[in-house]
């Protein structure tokens, strides 16, 4: 493990330049460049807000902002987009970089780190954009938002853990790459991002606790929409799961790394 960190440290220059290159490559030939990374989720939010606000807005208790549903959507989307982006990029990471891995010697661990770095960069930009939109809709930044820092770490750990496991498996069993986007889609709809949790029928309510993304998304709602301290206990459970998955992912990555090049 120490060795892993050491090699990562000595390749920090490569990691940073990769993230920067990826970012600047986006600006290279399109006028809006990296803005598309923000426009995309915002457009999605706008669509949901337009289509569903009349149906669902009334179900949001406890806030008296007429744009409450839009705020709710954006808060959830912020968390989910980071989660989904890391997973889907980790999923095809080793296959996409197969050629490089076959031809060059470098610490493989830099690859997922680059993905995480570049996803976090997008996330921060999206967050800043959301702050602007929130301010326009009458929700000003507040101190509770500091909670987002540990939450971001938790959701990143969870996503990287899942992403690494799936990414490694995908090298050997390519069906994983096909089935995961579908599962992510299903998972998205089983997580209260678009709808409030209270519209779930009582008898199904207990199942939602099995979803490790539920506490995270709820915490984002608590912080960004309701401006209150999130439910710590729930988040701790998710964090423990996240750390467990992350360790499992790293273990599998270490075991699979020598064989990956053989089958790529």
């Amino acid at each position, binding site marked *: 493990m120490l060795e892993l960190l050491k090699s990562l440290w000595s390749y920090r220059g490569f990691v940073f330049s990769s993230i920067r290159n990826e970012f*600047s490559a986006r600006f290279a030939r399109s006028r809006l460049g990296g803005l598309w990374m923000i426009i995309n989720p915002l457009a999605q939010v706008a669509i949901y807000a337009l289509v569903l606000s009349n149906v669902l807005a009334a179900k949001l208790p406890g806030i008296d902002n007429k744009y409450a549903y839009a705020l709710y959507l954006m808060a959830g989307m912020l968390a989910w987009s980071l989660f989904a982006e890391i997973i889907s990029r980790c999923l095809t990471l080793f296959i996409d970089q197969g050629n490089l891995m076959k031809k060059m010697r470098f610490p493989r661990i830099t690859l997922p780190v680059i993905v995480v770095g570049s996803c976090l960069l997008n996330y921060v930009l999206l967050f800043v954009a959301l702050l602007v939109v929130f301010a326009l809709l009458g929700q000003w930044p507040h101190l509770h938002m500091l909670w987002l820092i540990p939450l971001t770490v938790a959701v990143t750990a969870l996503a990287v853990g899942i992403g690494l496991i799936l990414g490694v498996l995908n090298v050997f069993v390519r069906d994983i790459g096909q089935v995961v986007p579908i599962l992510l889609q299903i998972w998205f709809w089983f997580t209260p991002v678009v709808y409030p949790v209270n519209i779930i029928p009582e008898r199904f309510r207990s199942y939602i606790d099995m979803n490790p993304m539920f506490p995270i998304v709820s915490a984002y709602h608590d912080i960004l929409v309701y401006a209150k301290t999130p439910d710590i206990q729930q988040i701790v459970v998710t964090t423990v799961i996240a750390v467990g998955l992350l360790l499992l992912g790293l273990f599998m990555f270490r075991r699979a790394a020598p064989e990956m090049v053989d089958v790529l």
Partner: protein
Amino acid sequence: MSLLTVNNLGKAYRVYASEFQRIGRWFGLPIKPSEEHWVLKHISFSINPGEAIGIVGQNGAGKSTLLKMITGTLQPTEGTVHVNGRIAAILELGMGFSSDLTGRQNVFHAAGLMGFNAEQINEVIDNIEAFAEIGEYFDEPVRTYSSGMQMRVAFAVATAIRPEILIVDEALSVGDSYFQHKSFDRIREFQAQGTTLLIVSHDRGSIQTLCNRAILLEKGTVIKDGKPEEVMDFYNALIAEKENATVQVRELQDGSIQTRSGSGEASIESVTLHNAAGDPIEYVSVGENVSLRIATRINSSIPELVVGYLIKDRLGQPVFGTNTHYLDCKLDSLEAGETVNYSFRFAANLGVGSYSVAVALHTEASHLSRNYEWVDLTLVFNVVNISQSEFVGLAWVPPTVECSR
């Protein structure tokens, strides 16, 4: 101390009945792969600083696999590779280049991929720019480059900092001939400074000029490790011998190694060199008219016979070779028991030095189609300068001179 030690190296590609079994193995389940395909086995050698080693072998012999394990992109299944120092490979130039970034940005990125930090790169970036010689393009996106320009930048990065071991694919062409010379100069310069070269090539000439040792791989094992000349002779014989016959190697009195191969339908009885008077000679003066006499015997009837010879210099570099196919003197339908004598007359317009002659009996244009017999070092002769003005080089190309002032 050796720079690189390869010890009992082996690589197997494993196939499992199901990929889930492979995954189970990572977690320590005692599962055996359903199939193991060994591409390399029992490879051992060590390399000292400043050596230049040619790795030769036919396609699929395991050259790339070996190099990948040496560079560390592939993990060996058994055995170890121990390296003292940094390895740079110019096998795949331009890996990791992104077409939307400028040459300069790509240099930083690619050097980072090689493990250098920003400081080290800053130190050499001007050198890289100067070496690549692509002018203002260095700060333009790589997509606007010609492929040669991209190669120039890639080569400049790959060799920006002298490695202890440099792996070169000889077939790799780096841009135009000007830059090729420039890049080979740099490789030689590194070698002079103590870098060990590992060169993969099929080209006899470059192996013999650049290397002082060659390793021949065949079917995943080292079958010959020695002087480039011997190894290349053996390799040539091996290519000719794909069919059936054997390759024989025997040590001559002077310690050099003679390789003899062929299917044996025809054999070489004697090879001698004679002067204009017909006396056998060993010393030839520059420009002297000589004849190379080759006596052959037909052992079983063959449809066609072509005799070829190749004069090589002391390093084994081909100087001149031809055969009776090209000379329009091939014979058809030969019967067992016949003997055929050839006499090739030529002026020995050769530089001073020692030369050897390899002779081959085959059909059609080269010994690759059907090789009856191929013998290296059938004859060794020396060229001495008795009558001509002083000159250097392998060939005697006498000029007349006029000068004006």
